[in-house]
């Protein structure tokens, strides 16, 4: 029943706190909110930077990506068939490739929306990406087997393709993909390579076309010569014809320092050439900076909330403990008369304060895990609750208990026994 003096102190501390359940609960709220703010803050910050790093991994930290954007629809033209020409052009590509200092490689990308078929398996409305040999280098993609598109494929307009790992697994389960022929639109293409996904995926093979991440690469010139520059999209009964030269141009830059220069030059150039604003410039390094900024703002805001809550919580705990010491003055006198030394009394009240704040801390861990979960769910932000967070929270609550419990405990320990015994 009574084991070590310490566990007895904790047990008796919990017992006296339970005598005033509501008061104890209310007292812990400050620590509760403080601790949960700390945990949420860490989780949101961690999630934001993880997300940014993953984007960078996907897009390449030394790349500047120019992308075609469909301009805002004109609401007055309500035809069922509309043809729009927009986006990046080959001259844009030439300007980036030819005149921007610091640019090492430029990759054009043109998407073709076609039905893709192998035997009886169909990927309808699949996006096939027309690009050049440099794509692999610039994006840092890794091949699973075979080879990527080569310069000669583009020049000769070869009917070859590289497929994504998931596409290969869908079309050719248990078979060698290399050398197979798939049908893209009306044309036949030989599979010359399989490329690994950008982010690692699970091991389960999929037989469901909808869940396949479609990645098919063909030489851009081959694609243009077969499919032309018109993309026809069927959209709830209305036919949308889009004419886009290039969907994307990826410029790879020599080093991180020149990224900003190339980005600025691209923006200037595009602003001049595209007054209709049918493009966007994506700079992964800027994404990272933005993510860091988000993280910093979150840290400041939640850090303030956390500090204020913890301070207010600590003061609240101190206040309640002072009241407790006053209420239990007689008990202190009794214990002193029965042989308790000052440090015993000190310990008793310190333990009680720490139990109180750790109680708040534990509730706070619960809320601190719930908040990132809700943020992830409703605000569509990634959050990561690290394993260290609960330990940190525990440490914080113990510290709060010790710091704010010190004065009440000291006061209790220094009561005069005779006075204390006479206390009503």
């Amino acid at each position, binding site marked *: 029943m009574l*084991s070590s003096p310490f566990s007895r102190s904790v047990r008796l501390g919990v017992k006296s706190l339970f005598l005033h359940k509501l008061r104890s609960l209310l007292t812990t709220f400050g620590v509760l909110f403080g601790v949960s703010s700390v945990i949420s803050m860490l989780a949101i910050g961690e999630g934001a930077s993880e997300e940014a790093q993953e984007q960078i991994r996907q897009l390449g930290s030394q790349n500047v990506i120019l992308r075609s954007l469909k301009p805002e629809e004109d609401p007055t033209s309500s035809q069922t068939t509309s043809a729009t020409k927009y986006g990046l052009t080959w001259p844009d590509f030439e300007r980036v490739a030819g005149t921007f200092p610091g640019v090492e490689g430029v990759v054009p990308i043109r998407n073709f929306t076609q039905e893709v078929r192998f035997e009886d398996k169909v990927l309808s409305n699949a996006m096939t990406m027309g690009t050049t040999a440099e794509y692999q280098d610039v994006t840092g993609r890794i091949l699973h087997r075979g080879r990527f598109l080569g310069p000669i494929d583009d020049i000769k307009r070869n009917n070859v393709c590289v497929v994504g790992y998931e596409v290969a697994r869908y079309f050719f389960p248990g078979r060698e993909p290399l050398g197979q022929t798939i049908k893209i639109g009306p044309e036949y293409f030989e599979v010359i390579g399989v490329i690994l996904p950008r982010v690692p995926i699970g091991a389960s093979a999929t037989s469901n076309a909808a869940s396949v991440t479609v990645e098919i690469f063909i030489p851009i010139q081959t694609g243009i010569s077969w499919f032309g520059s018109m993309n026809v999209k069927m959209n709830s009964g209305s036919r949308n014809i889009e004419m886009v030269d290039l969907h994307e141009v990826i410029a790879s830059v020599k080093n991180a320092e020149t990224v900003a220069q190339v980005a600025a030059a691209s923006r200037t150039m595009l602003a001049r050439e595209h007054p209709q604003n049918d493009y966007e410039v994506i700079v992964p390094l800027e994404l990272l900076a933005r993510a860091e900024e988000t993280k910093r703002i979150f840290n400041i805001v939640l850090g303030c909330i956390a500090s204020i809550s913890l301070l207010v919580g600590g003061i609240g705990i101190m206040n309640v403990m002072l009241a407790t010491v006053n209420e239990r003055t007689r*008990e202190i006198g009794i214990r002193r008369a029965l*042989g308790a030394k000052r440090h015993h009394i000190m310990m008793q009240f310190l333990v009680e304060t720490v139990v109180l704040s750790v109680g708040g801390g534990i509730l706070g861990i619960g809320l601190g895990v719930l908040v990132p979960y809700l943020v992830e769910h409703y605000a569509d932000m990634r959050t990561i609750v690290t394993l260290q967070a609960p330990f940190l929270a525990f440490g914080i609550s113990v510290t709060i208990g010790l710091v704010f419990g010190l004065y009440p405990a000291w006061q209790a320990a220094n009561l005069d026994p005779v006075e204390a*015994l006479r206390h009503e």
Partner: protein
Amino acid sequence: MISLNLGITQSKNKPLVVVAELDDVARIYKMGDTEVRALDGVSVKFSSSEYWSIMGASGSGKSTLLNILGCIDTPTSGAYRVEGKDTKSLDDDSLSDLRGSSIGFIFQSFNLIPQLNVLENILVPTFYRNEESELSIARAEELARRVGLEERLLHRPTELSGGQQQRVAIARALMNDPQIILADEATGNLDSHTTEEILELFSELHDEGKTILLVTHELDVGKRAQNILTLRDGKIESITEGNG
């Protein structure tokens, strides 16, 4: 079996040893310009296995005397020696140790700790000594049996009558097997029947060799002791023999 020392082995025929000795003790309270001499030049020796009652009018200094004897208060002047040690030379921790090992307090208002049950209350004095806890529990249960509360071990003080609470307090005072039992108006809040029971317990303890100092203002109660010390305005008025 765990062997228990409940103090039964001591005999009252042992040669008398002075356990507590006051030498010209004064305790003065200063209230602004006025001084209250709660104790004034008190010299007296208490020996082992003696049963004393301390009497006197309200405000005559009985409690002050007992507090000094119990080492929770210190003389303003004069010397107090307990078990051969001069309390002046002891620091706060040593005085606490002395209280824990040699002195058992019993109060008028019982002074049990409300959030603890009977067993835990009896055990409180052991919390501040580094003792084997299983032995302590066995001893606490034995003491509870002795004061007739073995059925109430897990009850809270509020669930007990006054007499029962005072018996818990007596068991608690005996927990560390102290030489000296100090009781300040221990029967002051009890009816005559319960008072009789408690006094019976004190007589037993005295027979077992404890030194008992009992503060009371009731002559009937005081007469149960061997010696009656009467205080008046902080001075010893008389020391007479009782019926004990």
